[in-house]
C-alpha cells in the first residue's frame, strides 16, 4: 500500500486544489520553486555526499529558480516515482517536473500537460553481463529482462521483441535499486532502460567493466521538463530557461566569462542574453533583465552542466552524441534570441 499512498494523497490534492492564475506569481510569493525530480538517478538527480541535489535534471530546476527568483538555491526538490509524477504536477504540488520524462504524443495530448523542451535526447538500450557473451540485442531470444515498470521502456520492449519475432520474460521492478538487486542476483539476464540510465546504473556496480551495453538503441526518448496546461507564461519561462543555457553554449558564454562578454558593446547577442544592453528579453517573460545572467552565472551553460553531471569526467562517462549542439553534429538546437 506504500506505493498507493502518494497517489491517494495527490488525488486528494487534485480534488481540493484551486489553481491560481499565475504560477510565476505563486513561485515569487512563495520565494521557492518546487521541482519534481527522480528518487535518485546518478547524473540526473541524486543527493551528493553533502545532501545537496545535483544532476542534469536538477540543474534545470536550478536554472528556472535562478531566472525567476534570482537564486538557483531556492529550490525545494520533491523526489517522485515514475508512477505519481504526473498527478503530483497536475495537482499543483510542484511547479515544474524535471524527471527524465519522455515526451510522447499521449502524454502531451491527453494528460493536460505541456513539455517545455528536451534537456537530454536518449534512447532505450540493453545491458548484459560481459560473461554472457552476447553482442547484439537480436541474440536475446528467450531471455529474462529486468525492466522498470511504469515507463515507456515497457512499450518499446514489447514492440521490439514482437517485431523481431522473439520471446522474453519481463521481470518488472519498481525502483532502479531493486532492478540492480535482481540483475546482480541473476534473476534476469538483461537490464533495459534508457541508455543514459544504464550508464548511471553501471557506474555504481562493483565492477562496471563486467557489464556491456549492447549497440542497439531501440527507441527515441526525448527527456524534458513538463509543466501544467493553462499557464503559457510559465511554459515560456521554463522553455527559455533551458534555451538560454543552449544559446549561451552556442555563443560560447560560460559562467567564467559572462561578465567580460556582457561588458563588450560589440557583442549585441551576448549583451541581449545577459541583459546588459537596451534589449528587454526578460521583461517579455515577466522576469527581470538579469534572468539569463543569473542562470549562466549560477548554473552555467548547457555544456558546463552536461560535463559536470554526466560527461566524460564523471562516473557515467557519456558522450555528447545527439546532445551536442546542432553546430557540432548533434540535435540540441535552441531558437534564436531575437
Amino acid at each position, binding site marked *: *500500500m*506504500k*506505493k*498507493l499512498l502518494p*497517489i*491517494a494523497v495527490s*488525488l486528494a490534492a*487534485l*480534488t*481540493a*486544489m484551486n*489553481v491560481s492564475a499565475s504560477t510565476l506569481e505563486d513561485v515569487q510569493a512563495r520565494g521557492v520553486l518546487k521541482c519534481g525530480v527522480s528518487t535518485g538517478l546518478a547524473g540526473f538527480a541524486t543527493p551528493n555526499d553533502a545532501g545537496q541535489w545535483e544532476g542534469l535534471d536538477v540543474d534545470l530546476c536550478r536554472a528556472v529558480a535562478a531566472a525567476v527568483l534570482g537564486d538557483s538555491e531556492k529550490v525545494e526538490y520533491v523526489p517522485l516515482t*515514475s*508512477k505519481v509524477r*504526473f*498527478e503530483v504536477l*497536475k495537482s499543483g504540488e510542484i511547479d515544474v517536473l524535471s524527471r527524465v520524462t519522455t515526451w510522447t504524443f*499521449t*502524454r502531451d495530448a*491527453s*494528460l*493536460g*500537460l505541456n513539455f517545455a523542451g528536451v534537456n537530454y535526447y536518449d534512447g532505450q538500450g540493453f545491458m548484459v553481463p560481459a560473461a554472457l557473451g552476447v553482442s547484439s540485442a537480436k541474440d*536475446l*531470444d*528467450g*531471455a*529474462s529482462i529486468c525492466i522498470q*515498470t*511504469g*515507463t515507456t521502456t*515497457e*512499450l518499446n*520492449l*514489447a*514492440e521490439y*521483441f*514482437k517485431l523481431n519475432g522473439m520471446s*522474453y*520474460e*519481463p*521481470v*518488472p*521492478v*519498481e525502483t532502479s535499486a*531493486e532492478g540492480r*538487486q*535482481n540483475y546482480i*542476483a*541473476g*534473476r534476469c*539476464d538483461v537490464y533495459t532502460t534508457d541508455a543514459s540510465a544504464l550508464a548511471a546504473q553501471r557506474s555504481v556496480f562493483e565492477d562496471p567493466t563486467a557489464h556491456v551495453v549492447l549497440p542497439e538503441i531501440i527507441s527515441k526518448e526525448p527527456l524534458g521538463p513538463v509543466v*501544467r*496546461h*493553462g499557464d503559457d507564461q510559465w511554459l515560456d519561462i521554463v522553455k527559455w530557461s533551458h534555451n538560454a543555457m543552449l544559446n549561451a553554449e552556442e555563443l560560447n558564454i560560460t559562467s567564467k566569462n559572462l561578465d567580460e562578454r556582457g561588458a563588450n558593446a560589440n557583442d549585441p547577442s551576448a549583451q541581449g542574453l545577459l541583459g546588459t544592453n537596451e534589449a528587454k528579453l526578460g521583461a517579455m517573460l515577466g522576469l527581470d533583465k538579469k534572468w539569463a545572467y543569473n542562470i549562466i552565472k549560477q548554473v552555467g551553460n548547457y555544456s558546463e552542466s552536461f560535463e559536470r553531471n554526466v560527461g566524460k569526467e564523471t562516473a557515467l562517462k557519456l558522450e555528447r552524441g545527439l546532445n551536442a549542439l546542432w553546430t557540432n553534429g548533434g540535435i540540441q538546437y535552441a531558437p534564436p534570441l531575437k
Partner: protein
Amino acid sequence: MSGTQVKEKKSVTLGSIWRDKHSRGVILQIIAVIGILLFLGNIVSNTVENLDRLGVKVGFDFLSEPSNYDINQTLIEYSSSDSHFRAGLVGLLNTLLVAVCGIVVATILGFTAGVLRLSNNFVLSRLMQVYVEITRNVPVLLQILLWHGILIHSMPVPKKAEALIEGVILTNRGIYLPQPIPQEGFGWVWIALLVGIVFAVFFKRYANRIQTETGKLIPAIWIGFVAVIGLPLVTYLLMGSPIEVSYPELKGFNYKGGFVIKPEFMALWFALSIYTGAFIAEIVRAGIQSVSHGQTEAAHALGIKPNFTMRLVVIPQALRVIIPPLISQYLNLTKNSSLAIAIGYMDLVATIGGISLNQTGRALESMGIVLGVYLFISIAISAAMNVYNKRVSLVSR
C-alpha cells in the same frame, strides 16, 4: 376511566424539539448526512472542474485500447496486443490466485500452530510461540522482500542449476516442474472425478441418516475419499493414460516447457501465508480456550472417545468464536497481496493500477477500478464467510 385521562398538551416549540432526546438525535443525523453529502459533492465538482480546466477528459474508453505491454505470469491467454481491460483481468486473476493459495496455506498453518501451541509438549508449544511472536511483529512488506531476496540470491541461475529429480529444477527464476498435458480422452477423467464427488456427497448424507436412525456408524469419509480418488484413477488407466508430460529443458537463457512457479509468486505466497498464519494461530488458540473445560469433561463422562470429543464437542463450539475474526484475517491477506508491487508480482495493482495507469495517465479511473475491485472481492469473501458463520453459530431451539 376515559374521563380521568389527562391529555398532555405540549406546545411544540423549537426549544422543546431540541430538548427531546429522540428528535434531537434525528435532527443531528440529518445535519450530519447533509454535511457529508455537501462535502462529497464539493470534492466531485472540484475534481471535475479542475480536470476540465486542464483539458483532461474522464472516461473508461482507454480500457479497450491495446495495452502494448507484456506480463510474465498469465493464467489466461494474453499478449501485448490485447486490451488494457484484459491486462487488468490477468492482474485480477493473479491477485485471486495468490489470495486463494495464501488463504489455504495460512488456514492450515494457523490451525496447526494454534492447536500445537496448546499442546502439553513444552518444546512444540514454545516453538509455536516463537513463530507467532516473530512473524506477526515484523511488517509483512519486509517479510515479502526477505523471502524474495532469499529466493533469488540462494537459488542457482538456470545455467548452473541441476535437476533435483527428473524434470524438477530449482532456479532463481522459479521452480520448473514437469507439466502434464491432457490428451484426447482425458475429458472422461474429469467426468469420473465429478461422479466421484457427487457420490461422496450423497453417500455422506445417507450415512448421516443411517446414523440418526440406527446409531450405526459408517466410515463415509473414507469411502467418499476412495470414490473421489479411485474413480478418476481407474478411468485414467482404462483410457490408456491419456496424458503427455512436458519436461522443462534448458534452451538458451532459460528453461522452456514444463510448468514454472516464479519466485515473485512464491515470495508473496510464503510471506502472506506465514504472516497471516500467525494471527490465525492466535485466533484458533483463543477459540479453543473459550470452550469451557466442563464440556470436555462432560463428553468424557458420557464415554465419548477423545478424538470425537475434539471433533464433535470442542471444535464446533470453538468455531463460533473463531470464524468472525478469521474473516478479517482472510480480508487482510487479500488486501495485503497488493504489496506484490514491491517485488514485481503482476497483480491487479501492478497491471491496471500500475503500467496501464502510467501508459494512459488515467490515474483517477485506474485507481477507481482497483479500489472498486478490492472492495468487491472483500465484500464477496465477507459474505461467503458470513454464510458459513450462520451455519456454525449457536442455533436457538
